[in-house]
Structures are given as structure tokens and as C-alpha cells.
């Protein structure tokens, strides 16, 4: 490998590292000087396949590496350390909510909705270790997630109201300059933020900001407001990386069949009954 290539690689690593550091340190990066490809309507073109590269799905807060939960899986199931994606100090849980989080943690091996292949909700869908695709057309935006084939349709027209609570919420989007802002309401209280039991209520209100900072990176922020669970709003942020493989495509991970034994196994007919 020539010196030039090494340099490019080092630069890429440094950029990535700085983006990650920025994510948890700079409080707000709402706009960017970057001007990338545009849609015919003149908005940033976010079409593509994206994925977070962090350990937030394990734990959105800073955490040490830790042993796995299933002995047979050894190192494979162990939790990698992470600097966290939450800006500021510990999550501002209300006292009862903090107790609930601890209970969730104790029960995480059976209670995490991810185990059962339930739709992950927002923002967890954005940083599960699976890619998702943004289909940004002239009529609106569709986000398709590989995990559980979860889907969000983003209404880019006049804001509308959900007729009821759902797993993936109700998304109204708008452009703030070159930033895509999505207001997510009407999520139910069944989804978690991560595998250690961080959770929310049905009062959850998420405001997401997608700031394109290069052709390969969207800086993603989610501001969480949930007065039933937290004493104040808080924010998480992270870069989302574009899949640049020439043959990149979203594949099916219809995980229901992988969770059936867990969910229904006890109801299976015993052989020779």
C-alpha cells in the first residue's frame, strides 16, 4: 500500500472519528456548508442505503464492554464498549421511570421487544445494526428498514395527525434549509431505545434532524421529549453512513419466523402426544 493510500485511509479514519466525537460533543450542528446532489425540486438528495455504525442499540449511553447474556454464545454475545450517543449527562429519568428502567434491565433477556421481532420504533430503527433505505421521491419519503421490514412513510405535505398510536409513529417532515426535519408523534409505549431497557411512554415526541455533511454521511439528531418519563428533553446524535458498495441493496430480514420458537414454542404439539 503506497503512502498516499495510507494517508487517505488515515484521513478517512480521522474524519470518521471526528464525526463520532462531534456527535456526542458538539451540541448542535443543524446546518452544514456541504452542498451535495439535489433532487429536481432542489432539496438534498438523501436517496440511498444508510446505516449507523455505533453500539447505541446495545446501550445509548456510554458503557464499558460487558459479558453476554447467553453462556453458549461466549464472546459473540458480549457487549462492545461504546462512548454513547446521548448528549450531556445521564438520561434525565423521573424517579419512577428510573426504577422501571432498572426493572427492564433485569428482565432484558425476555422483555426487550427486539427479541420478538417487534417493530423497533423511532429512533431505535435508525441505529439498529441493520441498513435502511431512504426512498425520496416527488411525492414523499419512504424509509424501509431491513430489521423486521419495518416501514415509515414521511408525509412531506401539509402536516397531518395520526388517527391512533402505532409502533413506528406518525411522521411529518419538512425542510429547514438543507436539513430534513421530521416530527414523530403517536408512538405506543411498547418499544425501547436499546437492549439495556432504556424506554419511553406513549407521550414520546421525537424531532429528528437529518443534516447531509458529505456525500457519504448524514449527521442525525433526535430530540426526545417525554414528560411522563423524563424531567427534560434530551438529544441523541450520530452519523449515518451511506452504503457505497456497488451492489448494495436492502435484503429481507423478516424475523418473525426467527422469533416464533421464542414466542410460541411452549404451545407446540409434543411429539407422540
Amino acid at each position, binding site marked *: 500500500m503506497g503512502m498516499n493510500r495510507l494517508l487517505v485511509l488515515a484521513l478517512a479514519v480521522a474524519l470518521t472519528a471526528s464525526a463520532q466525537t462531534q456527535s456526542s460533543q458538539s451540541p448542535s450542528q443543524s446546518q452544514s456548508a456541504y452542498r451535495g446532489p439535489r433532487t429536481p425540486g432542489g432539496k438534498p438528495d438523501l436517496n440511498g442505503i444508510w446505516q449507523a455504525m455505533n453500539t447505541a442499540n446495545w446501550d445509548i449511553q456510554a458503557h464499558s464492554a460487558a459479558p453476554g447474556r447467553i453462556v453458549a454464545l461466549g464472546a459473540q454475545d458480549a457487549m462492545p464498549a461504546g462512548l454513547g450517543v446521548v448528549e450531556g449527562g445521564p438520561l434525565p429519568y423521573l424517579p419512577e421511570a428510573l426504577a422501571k428502567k432498572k426493572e427492564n434491565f433485569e428482565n432484558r433477556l425476555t422483555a426487550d421487544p427486539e427479541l420478538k421481532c417487534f417493530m423497533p420504533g423511532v429512533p431505535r430503527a435508525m441505529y439498529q445494526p441493520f441498513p435502511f433505505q431512504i426512498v425520496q421521491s*416527488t411525492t414523499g419519503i419512504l424509509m424501509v428498514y431491513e430489521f423486521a421490514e419495518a416501514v415509515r412513510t414521511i408525509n412531506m405535505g401539509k402536516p397531518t395527525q395520526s388517527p391512533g398510536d402505532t409502533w413506528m409513529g406518525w411522521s411529518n417532515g419538512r425542510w429547514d434549509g438543507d436539513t430534513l426535519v421530521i416530527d414523530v408523534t403517536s408512538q405506543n409505549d411498547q418499544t425501547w431505545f436499546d437492549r439495556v431497557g432504556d424506554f419511553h411512554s406513549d407521550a414520546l415526541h421525537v424531532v429528528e434532524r437529518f443534516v447531509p455533511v458529505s456525500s457519504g454521511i448524514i449527521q442525525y439528531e433526535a430530540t426526545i421529549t417525554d414528560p411522563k418519563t423524563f424531567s427534560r428533553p434530551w438529544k441523541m446524535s450520530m452519523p449515518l453512513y451511506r452504503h457505497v458498495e456497488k451492489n448494495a441493496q436492502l435484503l429481507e430480514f423478516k424475523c418473525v419466523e426467527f422469533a416464533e420458537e421464542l414466542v410460541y414454542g411452549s*404451545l407446540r404439539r409434543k411429539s407422540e402426544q
Partner: protein
Amino acid sequence: MTSQSVARLAAGAFVAVGVCLVPLRLPAQAPAQAPGAAAPSTARPAAPKPRPAGEKGAARGWTVPRTPDGKPDLQGLWTNATVTPLERPDGAKEFATAEELAALEKRGNRDEQAKADAERGTPAASTETPAAPARRNGIGDYNAIWWELGKKALENSRSSIITGPSGKLPHTPETVQRLAANREYERLHPADGPEFRDNIERCLAWITSGPPMLPTFYNNTYKIYQTPKTVAILVEMIHDVRLIHLDGSAHSSPAVRQWMGDSRGHWEGDTLVVETVNINSKRGYIGGGGGRSGIAPNNDKMKVTERFTRTAADTIMYQFTVENPGIYTGPWSGEIPMKATDEPLYEYACHEGNYAMHDILSGARADEAAAAKGKEKK
């Protein structure tokens, strides 16, 4: 718990959840009884005049709407709900007369309801008295009043969705035998475990998503998004999304088998042509539903070619050809003019609320326990 109480329990859960036991309205499972079709008219030799899709629009000087890159714009909400059956009724001609179509539209849905209710032993839509479950596995489900086939026959005036001289699925003799064996297998193993139930009950795949995209008993709505490189087709049930790649790339590795296969599209003039391969063998014979473990067809060689053409302000002409050597004696084709609709899609959390699966399995286990206890007493 008796079968009947299981049936009621399951039916209640299904209504609440929306998961459904109703088998796909396809002759693959109910052969040679295309329901709701106009009786063939022998007394009316007059050649039927097909109603060409788009006639109305064209008359108004309609032109194909286009996306900014100049391609026909397929976006929006569409439905393929119809009372026209998949297979042509025995004796019917390829095209129906206006009178036959009117009769079909008047009777279609009610015929479907009556037939379905009788087949499954569910209470008729007009009565609240439950009949004894007569379905092959003794488990009933909600009656056909919940069905929504639309009110219209296909506006192409065809007597069936399937085109061609026979209008029937060209099953090989082996497939016919296999389908009969499957029905016996289902009867013997109605609820041994989740994989013994239909894919749609398991929330694994919905019928309409295809390919081919065929209508079923309800929720026949599609939402299409289109960019220069991707066409995404979303259906509400089981939040299935087909992602069709238009970038000219080759199919992905055949080692990757998917429920909806691997779809690549290209434009031939103003028609979007989509070719799909690498469909898994867990699906049913035609759409996503129907396949139960151990009795699904081998889809290794299945290929579906679809053509989407905007023909009017409110119409996409959808045409398809299915090839699956070994399952069929040859390719078979069909066409459906899909109509614009203003029915929006919402989230359909199928698996997350699938209490019906729990109830079906636990009910079956309770029945077995009761039967075993009865034996002991004797």
C-alpha cells in the same frame, strides 16, 4: 375447550388483530370452482366488446404524467380489488358480455360470502347463530362479511384475471397431486406449531405483495414511490415493501432467497418491465400466503415478469407472466387494470398483536389434552 370455543376465540382475536384464516381466494386451494363468476351464456353469441383501459382518459386528451427524469409517473395509491376471479369459470368465454359483467358485479361479493361461509362453517353474514365448524381442520374464522373484494369486475371485460386460451393455471399432474396431498397434510396437522399455519396468519408475507401482485379478500391497496433508481411498492398488510432496482444492475446471488425475490426493472418505452427471480420456497404456490412448512412448492426456478403501463389518469395496466417449470406445464399470464384510489395506508402491526396464533395453538393443545383425558376414563 372445544373446537367451537377455539373457533370463537380465534375469530374474535382475528377481528381485533386483522390476521385472517381465510384461505387465499385461489383455485390452487379450491380448484375448479371459480367463485362469483358470471354463468357462461350460451344463448348470447354476440362477440363481447372489450372496454379498453384508458379510453375514457384518452378521450379527455389525457397524457401520461411524468417524473422529473421523464419516465411515466406510477406514484400514488392504487387498488386491484375485483370480483373477477383468477381462473376462468368452466365454459366461460375469454371476454364477458356487458350483461354478464353486470351480473357478476351484482352477485360477485355475495356469492363469495355465501360460498366462503358454507365452506368454513362460519355463521352466515345475515345470522348471528354460529353453525358447527365444518372447515377441514375444525377451526372456523370470521365470516365473509369482512371481505372487501371491491364491487367491480375488471374493466378489461375479461372473465378471469388469467389471460390466454384456457384462463386456467396450467398445473402439472404432479402439482395437482401435491395440492391434494397438502390439503390432507393440513387436515392431519392443523396446528402442531406456528409453521403449520398459513404464512399470512404468521405475519410472514401478505398475498397481494407478490409477485405477481394478485388481489385477495381484502386490503388490495398499493402505494408506489418512484425515483430514477428505485420503485418501491408498499402494501399495508405485514408492511411488505417491494424494492425494484432500476439501475441496470444484475440480479443478486441466487444464494440469497427472499419472500418477494430479487426484482430488477427497466423501461421499455413507457412501460416499466420488472423481472423477479430468487424467490424462496416458503411462499405459497402463487402469492405470499398459503405456504405452510413442508408443503410449499419448490420455487428455485420461479420467474415473474411484470409490466406496468399508465393507460389513463386513474389506471395502471398491470400485466404479468409466471414461469415455474415443474409446477406448471408452461408460463401463464394475467392482467389487471389497477385503479387509482384515495384509500390511505396505515401501519399494520400484524405480528406484534398476533394473539390469534397463541389462541389457535393453545386451543389445539387444550383439545388434545381433553381428548387424552377422555381416553383415560374409558
